[in-house]
């Protein structure tokens, strides 16, 4: 015990065996359920990706239909949860706090206890929580989910109250598939740790949502969009980049702790964004984005040759989500709406072959103290 080695960030330690996804940081490859992320992202609907994670294979046509129907049946939230979300909106609570409140109470009005059913419940309920909160915050009444719409289309519908454009649905769907799972990032690790005590999936996903909120976790591309809009407005992107570098500020959307290459997800999302913008009125913005990316990557290579600061997933996430009209305040909650597929699949994997996660610590505090009564302190 005395000479225990400390593994502060757990970087070299594997805590779980998983079949869900694998990352090769050097080659810049990510595969989900055995499929390269590019294949899955462009071909699947989100429900199909989730089925793949839960069952380790793609569904047949009829399996997919019944899976979609099951998911659609789990979308409603109870009156009390709506009240909580209205209150949160009125108090201008952070959208991630509102999501935590909603997910923590996702069991209300939903009488299931089987882990596999709770997994579907959680996947389905997040879009309703997020949009209900957002409608209240925008001074509008929430829109009830529509069972005839798919997961992604229904989300956009509940957000705007109008049936969405198929190209926007496809764009968002590609994003949701792309980020559905990514190894043991902190939020997924929390979910597995909670499940390791044989707790339930609502608890595990609530914990995951809580950790996703933290600024050290990825999945928060809001600042990337701010940067792009400012740089575009400035009319002088080169000058903007130079100024940031000179003042030692970070350029958002570059560099990843796992990938030493361009993030494979950035590749997928840039294609999706290109496709989406080429059919939209905002084609010029995408042209600017591509140029800006090139400028930054080459300038960063000159500026920090010692580090790999290539484009990460957040860069094109911001571009794509902005394109399909997701308000930037909801970027992180939209990430959660995708990742819940990975969180729940990891929990099911943990529960199937469980061992409690209980690490050691090294004591560095005082020793040998004894009680002093309050008046002699």
């Amino acid at each position, binding site marked *: 015990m005395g000479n225990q080695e400390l593994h502060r960030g757990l970087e070299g330690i594997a805590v779980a065996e998983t079949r869900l996804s694998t990352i*090769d940081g050097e080659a810049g490859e990510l595969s989900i359920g055995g499929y390269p992320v590019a294949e899955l992202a462009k071909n699947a609907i989100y429900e199909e990706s989730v089925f793949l994670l839960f069952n380790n294979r793609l569904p047949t046509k009829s399996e997919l239909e019944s899976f979609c129907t099951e998911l659609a049946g789990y979308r409603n939230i109870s009156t009390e949860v709506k009240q909580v979300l209205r209150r949160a909106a009125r108090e201008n609570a952070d959208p991630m706090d509102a999501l935590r409140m909603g997910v923590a109470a996702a069991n209300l009005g939903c009488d299931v206890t089987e882990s596999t059913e709770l997994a579907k419940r959680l996947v389905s309920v997040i879009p309703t929580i997020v949009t209900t909160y957002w409608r209240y915050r925008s001074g509008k009444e929430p829109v009830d989910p529509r069972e005839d719409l798919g997961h992604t289309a229904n989300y956009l519908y509940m957000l705007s109250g109008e049936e969405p454009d198929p190209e926007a649905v496809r764009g968002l769907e590609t994003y949701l598939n792309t980020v559905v799972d990514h190894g043991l990032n902190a939020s997924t690790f929390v979910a597995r740790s909670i499940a390791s005590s044989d*707790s339930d999936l609502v*608890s595990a996903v609530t914990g995951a949502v809580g950790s996703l909120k933290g600024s050290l976790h990825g999945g928060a591309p809001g600042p990337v969009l701010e940067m792009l809009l400012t740089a575009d407005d400035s009319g002088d992107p080169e000058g903007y980049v130079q100024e940031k570098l000179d003042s030692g500020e970070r350029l958002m959307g570059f560099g990843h702790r796992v990938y030493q290459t361009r993030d494979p997800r950035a590749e997928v999302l840039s294609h999706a964004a290109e496709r989406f913008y080429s059919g939209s009125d905002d084609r010029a913005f995408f042209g600017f984005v591509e140029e800006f990316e090139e400028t930054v990557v080459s300038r960063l290579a000159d500026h920090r040759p010692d580090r790999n600061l290539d484009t990460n997933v957040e860069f094109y996430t911001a571009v794509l989500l902005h394109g399909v009209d997701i308000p930037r305040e909801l970027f992180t909650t939209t990430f959660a709406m995708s990742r819940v597929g990975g969180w729940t699949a990891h929990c099911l994997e943990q529960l199937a072959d469980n061992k409690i996660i209980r690490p050691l*610590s090294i004591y560095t505090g005082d020793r040998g103290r004894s009680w002093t009564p309050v008046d002699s302190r």
Partner: protein
Amino acid sequence: MTPSVFDPGLSFTAVAETGLSEIDGDTGEFRIQGFEIEDLAENAAYEEVVWLLFNGRLPTDNELATFTNELSSARSLTDTIYSLIQEGAEEGVPAIDTLRMGLGAGSLSFDSEDTLMATRRVVAICPPIIAAYWRYRQGREPIQPRDDLTHTENFLYMLSGVEPAASTVKGLETYLITIIEHGLNASTFAARIIGSTGSDPFSAATGAVGALKGPRHGGALKRVSEMLTGLDNGTDPATFVQERLEGDGSFPGFGHIVYNTRDPRAEIVEQAAERVGGKQDSTPFLRNARQLEAVAAEYFTEQYPKRQLHVTVDYYAAVLLSELDIPPELFTAIFAIGRSAGWMAHYLEQLESETLLRPRTRYVGPDERSWISRSDRFVAGDSSPPSSTDLKGISSILGTLSEPARLEISLILYESAEPLSYSSIRAQSSIEDKGRFNYHLRKLRRIYITNTAAGYSLTDTGRKVVEMLVDDEQLLAQTIE
């Protein structure tokens, strides 16, 4: 990729330095900030130990008064949270889930951006959430907290509506202090992972409650209580122990993961139960629990001389809480009331270290696959069977079984009506070498067998395969002839 160490429970890996507490599992000692736990439990008020965890030393009179006020002013809940709790109570949601719901919404109507204040808020609102839940369950209205009562008094007051007796307060307070903190157990670790991202105290506490809920963690209290209640009617303890262990094999309240001795906290709580009961050893509940402990300890020493199976804090906590007339439905939630301070102290420690916890996985999934269009996918019942290249996965799954040792393990599990512990499969199997045994057991996991809290058992697939083998008309019968 850097080669990584595989440690699925992290039981060999130290992930943090802590100044909060120190466990010596071999000598059975436990200290908080350098104070023996016995010392704190005997002398301190709950608020004092919370302050100690947050600040690293004992508070002065003034500091304690200020802190007590801070807790009081952070204790009130908005109507929206009360409605949420009421709905939980009416739907029959367990107390610990309702606590998760309440804490999850704990940031509502709390206008401080200050992280330290939010950690106080977490500690302050656990009691009113649980008390309100219980009142609603009884069909009564919740009772508002009173500023002139201490943390522990307030809880008991909000629960019953009457000012509690001093001896009851002392009994509960002893318990809350004894379990206030205990290293990196699953719930505390969950709080630290959440803190490691820079997230807020409500998120960390909500996650921790979620982990505590699990039967492998906080759930033990409830099981002990059920066990001891079952013993109440004059059963002979020796018969009882034997029947339980030969039955489902579980004996809650025995064998702590970090102690090779009796859990030092058990003693403290046992004595507190004795004091609450009045004169020594006078209540039947405590007397029965003690007799059962003695018989069980003897049984374990005989049966498993190499393993250290001693009583844990949960065992006597169930006795103490019962003596205090606290409903068993609230036991796990009350543990959370005590532990919330430990969670928050660890959360702050992790936050200050600014280190993200991001471990690795070991990939055991399929090799690269290529996309199959929806209409080309095959499962049993569809018309056109796939080609051999698409069947590699299945063929390797079947290959796993083609090994006598693995078939033997599968048959052992098939023969047992209940899940089996690791040691009991080992004992029944003819595979002597431990490494070889572990290897084959591992190979069978996931597809053919699973391991849950209750032990190992066959999966549906595993059961089907073995059924095919052992059916009279089938393979095993033919080959064994």
